[in-house]
């Protein structure tokens, strides 16, 4: 999907040699697309006066997810899991954002245990009830 003004974005921390890894900048820094000329994307970033334009290939495109999906997760307490096995307690956190990254729906959680931010696919989290 081509970038559009208003999309959020971030530096794409993957490459041909880095596919499986997930780097987790703390905290994540997201910019907002302000201008699109071909594949050249202009971005504003909170706290920065100006940001030079960058080619779209170096950026992750972050778009709104379906409202129903967002409502299912936002402000909920979730815990991460992989292959059905729960992560350790540190990966239990409050969902502070829900969005699609290049078409994959993810939640951004802030750990209740250590304040770290973790971005996890919605398929890898379970909502904890009663909270």
């Amino acid at each position: 999907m081509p970038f559009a003004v208003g999309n959020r974005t971030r530096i794409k921390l993957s490459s041909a040699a880095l596919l499986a890894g997930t780097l987790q900048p703390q905290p994540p820094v997201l910019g907002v697309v302000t201008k699109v000329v071909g594949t050249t994307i202009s971005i504003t970033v909170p706290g920065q006066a100006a940001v030079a334009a960058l080619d779209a290939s170096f950026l992750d495109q972050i778009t709104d997810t379906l409202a129903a999906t967002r409502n299912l997760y936002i402000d909920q307490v979730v815990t991460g899991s992989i292959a059905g096995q729960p992560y350790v307690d540190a990966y239990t956190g409050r969902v502070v954002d829900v969005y699609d990254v290049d078409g994959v729906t993810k939640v951004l959680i802030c750990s209740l245990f250590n304040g770290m931010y973790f971005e996890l696919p919605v398929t890898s989290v379970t909502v904890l009830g009663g909270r």
Partner: protein
Amino acid sequence: MAVNDVVSQRFSPPSLEALQVQPPHFGKITAHAAPGTPTVWWDTFEVATLAAANDADLHLDVIEDAAAGVIDTFTGETVLRISSSGATALDAAGGTSREFVGTVVAIYKRTPLGDAPGSGADYLLVKSGGVFFEDVAAQFVVIQA
């Protein structure tokens, strides 16, 4: 080094004991017109045009995928760093540093710029007691729940 590589400040000998950046940052090579002069966009959107006589002098590591087994072992876990040269001489494991119990934040391979792709060591980025630290994955064990 190639355009599109993900890099970080070097974290391998002889700078292994360097002060850990808090938090560590990663960047993307967006241009590399001549040796030693890449443009890096850091994850904070800060842009740096570096300058060195050659790529090796930039003291950057290329960040690559860790071995699948390492990712499977450590993803989502709490770990303890085992010091192979620990001060507790009577500990058969070489001594442990309980201060280094932490949560795994990220798992990746660091290959010093200029070395063969994929030739680096697998590292864990861990946060413990409010402090980030990195070490080679072999230095950690998973604490069982």
